[in-house]
């Protein structure tokens, strides 16, 4: 038996509703993330151009953390130039 608190139930139901058959795995997202970040930096709408990457980033904490870090790195390195 699994114990469910309301907050947890909401989180789980939200993740379940938004499940789609064509989700990317972490490795597939990793393969695209450099292009995605460069589009973001160029001021283009990366989420719209690469919706599956955006979808993965919304549900995977680890990939999202790496995405944010890469964005921060590129911004900082650009600022150095």
């Amino acid at each position, binding site marked *: 038996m699994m114990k*469910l608190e309301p907050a947890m139930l909401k989180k789980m139901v939200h993740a379940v509703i938004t499940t789609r058959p064509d989700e990317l795995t972490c490795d597939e997202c990793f393969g695209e993330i450099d292009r995605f970040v460069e589009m973001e930096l160029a001021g283009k709408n990366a989420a719209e151009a690469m919706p599956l990457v955006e979808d993965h980033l919304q549900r995977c904490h680890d990939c999202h953390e790496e995405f944010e870090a890469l964005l921060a790195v590129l911004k900082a390195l650009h600022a150095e130039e």
Partner: protein
Amino acid sequence: MPKRTNQEWLAELKSPEHNQAGLSAHNQALVDLRALLVRGLGYAVANRYHVPEADLEDFAQEALLKILDGLDTFRGESLFTTWANKIAINVAFSELRRLRWKDVSLQDLVAPYEDSGDFTPEVLTDSSPSPEQRMNQRMMIEKVQEIINEELTDRQRTAMIAVMMEGMPIREVARRMGSNRNALYKLLHDARSHLKARMQLEGISPQKVLAAFE
């Protein structure tokens, strides 16, 4: 550091030509790339992890070997340096997450979620909703619990709790389950897909479940 095109990076990093100029270009590219990765990692970990400079250099070195090993997989869809930085971040963060979670067992994470039989959801002790609302909430919780218990395997339940509820990194959960990051993501995706299908089959609208707790 001189600006290089993607082609120049690749040419200089691949096996060097056997002449003095080739060797020195190769060595310089290695030095420049390593320095760039160390700088990048400094920005990457800022505000996230506390990491000594020496560790950043170790991560950069490990990433450099991975990058050299994977040069043929670079598709040229981004700047080479962007691609290299993403690999370095992945190397560093994977290790930092491993260290952060090293003393946590899956068993400890999951234990609080095991129902001892006398469990009363907090919503039932909350006096704000009306009795009717509370009844509705209780029914929703029980139904979803039933579906989870019937549809998911033990592994799926454990992975869902660890990743979704407790925020354990997928790779760390995978390591403890004798699996890998990709396979574990698929396991979680299957779990969510099963729950979604069963809820549809039972005519439970997820929106209704969520609305019950607004």
